[in-house]
């Protein structure tokens, strides 16, 4: 049984995959178009490895999604988050963040086990019990204060660990920068979370408020703003940086 939120999420991803066809990324040329002084051919050269290139066959769609996210942030997501931050005292916001961190130790645990990283699984278990018991349901992160550090693992990392490449780069609507492997990972982690159903959503109606608050808390903790750098090549830089960051997380 899947929750409404997961079904929505999977629907969104299917929609994404459908939309991946189309959208030309080639510049429009006319009869008066002339080649520039510096071109890829005369500047980069045929046998040089171009810097910072990541496979991006769905670039047209991705740029559209990037633009969609800019507007989604501007007119919906960020105003909601400002409202949330206005209503909630900072202290309460931190408790919410800790609560989600604690409940999602589940992902860290399952994926550590899947990667046969039993030490990480043990640390995660220890953290979960310390924070659930002494941190009162995970509202306080006592474990980190005791030097038991969080071990972030997700299904995208698990696949990466077993040699699955990152695949085409994807910008997911709402979720942001990703790639085929990591987007699949998000969906699988969501399914696993639903299957285990730690908060018993099957028998209550708390799933929608849970996921909405989770979305708000997650976005709140990310400083990134679409086109916040004003750099015309922000899309390229983020694509490179996201991919490198994931490589680093998988290597750990």
């Amino acid at each position, binding site marked *: 049984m899947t929750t409404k939120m997961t079904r929505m999420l999977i629907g969104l991803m299917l929609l994404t995959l459908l939309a991946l066809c189309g*959208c*030309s*990324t*080639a*510049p*429009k*040329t*006319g009869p*008066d*178009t*002339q*080649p*520039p*002084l*510096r*071109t*890829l051919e005369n*500047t*980069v050269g045929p046998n*040089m*490895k*171009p*810097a*910072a*290139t990541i496979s*991006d066959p769905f*670039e*047209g769609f991705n*740029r*559209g999604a990037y*633009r969609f996210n*800019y507007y989604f942030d501007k007119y919906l997501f960020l105003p909601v988050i400002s409202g949330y931050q206005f209503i909630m005292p900072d202290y309460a916001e931190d408790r919410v963040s800790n609560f989600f961190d604690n409940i999602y130790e589940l992902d860290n645990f399952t994926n550590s086990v899947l990667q046969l990283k039993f030490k990480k699984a043990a640390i995660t278990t220890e953290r979960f019990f310390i924070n659930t018991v002494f941190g009162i349901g995970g509202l306080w992160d006592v474990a980190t204060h005791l030097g038991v*550090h*969080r*071990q*972030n693992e997700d299904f995208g990392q698990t696949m990466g660990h077993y040699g699955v490449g990152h695949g085409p780069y994807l910008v997911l609507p709402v979720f942001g920068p990703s790639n085929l492997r990591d987007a699949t990972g998000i969906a699988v982690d969501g399914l696993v979370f639903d299957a285990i159903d730690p908060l018993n959503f099957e028998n209550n109606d708390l799933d929608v408020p849970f996921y909405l608050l989770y979305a708000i808390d997650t976005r709140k903790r990310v400083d*990134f703003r679409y*086109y*916040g*750098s*004003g*750099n*015309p*090549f922000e*899309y*390229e*830089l983020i694509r490179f*940086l996201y991919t*490198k*960051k994931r*490589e*680093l*997380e998988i*290597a*750990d």
Partner: protein
Amino acid sequence: MNVLHLKFAAALIALCLWETPVFAVETTPYFFPYVSPYEATVMETPPAYQYQAPKDVPTSVFKVYPFPDRKIPDVFWYQDGLTCSLVYQKEEAPLIFIIAGTGARYNSPKMVALQRAFYQAGFHVLSITSPTYSEFVITASSNMMPGYLPADAKDLYRVMQLAWKKAQKKIRVSSFNLTGYSLGGIQSAFVSKLDEEQKVFNFKKVLLINPPLNLYSSVSRLDKMLLANVPGGIEHFGDFIDDALAKFSEASRAEGFVDLSGEYIYRIYRRYPPRQDFLASLIGFAFRVDSSSMIFAADVMNGGGYVVPKGVRLNSSTSLTPYSQVLFRTGFTDYFHEYFFPYWQKRHPELSEQQLIDKLSLTAIAPYLRSARKIGLLGNEDDIILAPGEIEKMVDIFGNRAQIYPTGGHCGNMNHPDVVRYMIDFFRKEG
């Protein structure tokens, strides 16, 4: 040049990582913890040495439209006007305009640090984005070909007047003052000279913070920091970053966990002290990221011909990756010789390249700077954007109005208490 404001540079540094070791605070004569100017430039003043100013200051952010009729190309669909910020006092107070460094905005970390310090000292602060920042090129530059200091000064002066027009509804001002760091420093000198003729603000005091003596000389040095320090040349920069990331990953495996807190980063820093050539290449790379976006904006706004084909239509879904690849291989000096100089030569056929280079310097307006008692200079002896002998030439121009610190790199000590106090005193003192 301000090379560290960009998210990417910050993120790269955050990924590759060092942060500031914590030192005991003491108030002895000027002491700066980083001996290496590259470390000073990248790491900036460690927290324990920073000037303490309030974090929350009353700020109003607004936009000005110097060219309201200009059609913004589709590829820059997210651009709308030039954003400025005003930090304001309730009472009447003197106002300081600040001009950001190369590629930096009104709200870059260095700008914010200055805003807080000047606010605490009782000034209003109006922050102006650098003419080299793409938003400025697109919305506020008259020729959209940044780098020609007299023209940039006119653009800045126009923006400052529009910003002041909006700000004056909110504040009462007793005097106008001007400062800027890095490229914004040398621009302040040219704006001040323009103000002597147009007399809109009649600046009372003007402070140049870590300016280049000669624009071309400094950008050549920054270009070389990237080219000379990546093993195997710029085309191996990707491998170079991969290597740095692998080291970070190795270090974090040894630590047993990953997080990006200052304390954690310091542990990594002690395990792998940063190499000077790596720091230099990072500075050079951050500068390259800045200059590439500036050149792209200039080229598109002027109808193409340099990296963008002439007559081509770019929109929000056009891939810009090929242009970014070309521009990551294009230095500021390449832009200068291949695009910038021909542009100005067309308008001034008698102008030689060397004459243009000479024009874009403090030396070119030295007689004015020698006589203008209201202008001061703040510099560092080990500033990495200055060639040997250039700091002496500046001291020769400014005489006892030059305050030179022995260390601090390029803008690395701007948040040092002694330096901040010097700036505040400079603007407070009469004459």
